[in-house]
């Protein structure tokens, strides 16, 4: 599949010890550069990452997924030769083949960022309630409608250096997905969506964020001052 050494995968990890090593090994068959950000896990995630061939950055305390992504992007963009960046979930939901297609698009088309979407292909594998909430989020967000995006909270994203350089996630928790969409709208990055498959395994369903967390996301996004650098 060609040389992917200019691609960096950023994987935020929080208490994923049972699966993280396998997920990293699997994805490293295609993408040799992986940085795992251990967000202050209380289990043995770090030890698992150490043996898996990924770079390891450890938050000394738990900060939240948004903060972990930002840390990972900052680490990856400082590595020599890094041109493309991918955010990738640690629980095995995402597929390396999807990432390959997204990177291919970044290389061949004039795009800055490619977002994974669950809503282009068949949506039957998405649990009903989840589908309903995700659709509602899209309807309520002006930025999403303006950019004609269909899936706000997909963890799979690929972007180039321009985006990585100016990436500045200030919402530490789960509000970062909406914040990234806002950034796309504000900075006028060229954006496209790519249909991806999300494997809702038993493990990822048990780990996945609960829908009630949407209330927290909404609150954090609404009640926010102009973020100062």
């Amino acid at each position: 599949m060609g040389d992917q050494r200019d691609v960096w995968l950023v994987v935020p990890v929080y208490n994923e010890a049972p699966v993280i090593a396998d997920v990293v090994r699997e994805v490293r068959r295609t993408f040799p550069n992986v940085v795992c950000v251990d967000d202050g896990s209380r289990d043995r995630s770090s030890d698992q990452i150490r043996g898996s061939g990924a770079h390891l950055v450890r938050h000394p305390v738990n900060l939240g997924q948004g903060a972990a992504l930002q840390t990972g992007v900052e680490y990856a963009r400082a590595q020599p030769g890094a041109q493309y960046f991918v955010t990738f979930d640690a629980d095995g939901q995402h597929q390396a083949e999807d990432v390959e297609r997204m990177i291919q698009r970044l290389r061949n088309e004039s795009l800055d960022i490619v977002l994974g979407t669950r809503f282009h292909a068949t949506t039957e594998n998405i649990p009903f309630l989840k589908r309903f909430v995700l659709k509602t989020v899209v309807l309520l967000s002006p930025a999403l409608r303006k950019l004609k995006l269909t899936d706000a909270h997909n963890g799979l994203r690929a972007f180039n250096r321009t985006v990585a350089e100016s990436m500045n996630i200030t919402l530490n928790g789960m509000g970062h997905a909406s914040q990234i969409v806002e950034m796309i709208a504000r900075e006028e990055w060229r954006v496209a969506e790519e249909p991806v498959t999300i494997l809702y395994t038993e493990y990822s369903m048990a780990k996945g964020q609960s829908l009630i967390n949407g209330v927290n996301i909404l609150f954090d996004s609404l009640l926010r001052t102009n973020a100062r650098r």
Partner: protein
Amino acid sequence: MLIQYILIVATVLLVIFFLRHHGTTRAGAVVKLGFALFLVFGVVAVLAPTQVSHLASLVGVGRGTDLVLYALVVAFGFATINTYLRFKELELRYARLARAVALRSAESPEASDTEHDGTLH
């Protein structure tokens, strides 16, 4: 009633002001002035309850104590928002500090991956 307009307009204006200017010196000064005014109002309410009752009837509130209560509710709401924003700001600084520490002690695989070398790819 006049009090309804006063309370609603005051609340809306304050929320907008807070979200736009939070953290600036001017906002800090305004908050302190507001707090001082609120204290003065409290002292006056204790010393001259009839005056407060008079003021209350001017704006359409039954009793002076009710007026004090309304003011207290608004003040409490703002104290809460202020604290919330302050916490968020601290959280962000704390995250940046933790990030700096984390990036300093990053481990690359060559250092820890000797037994796996060659088996991958």
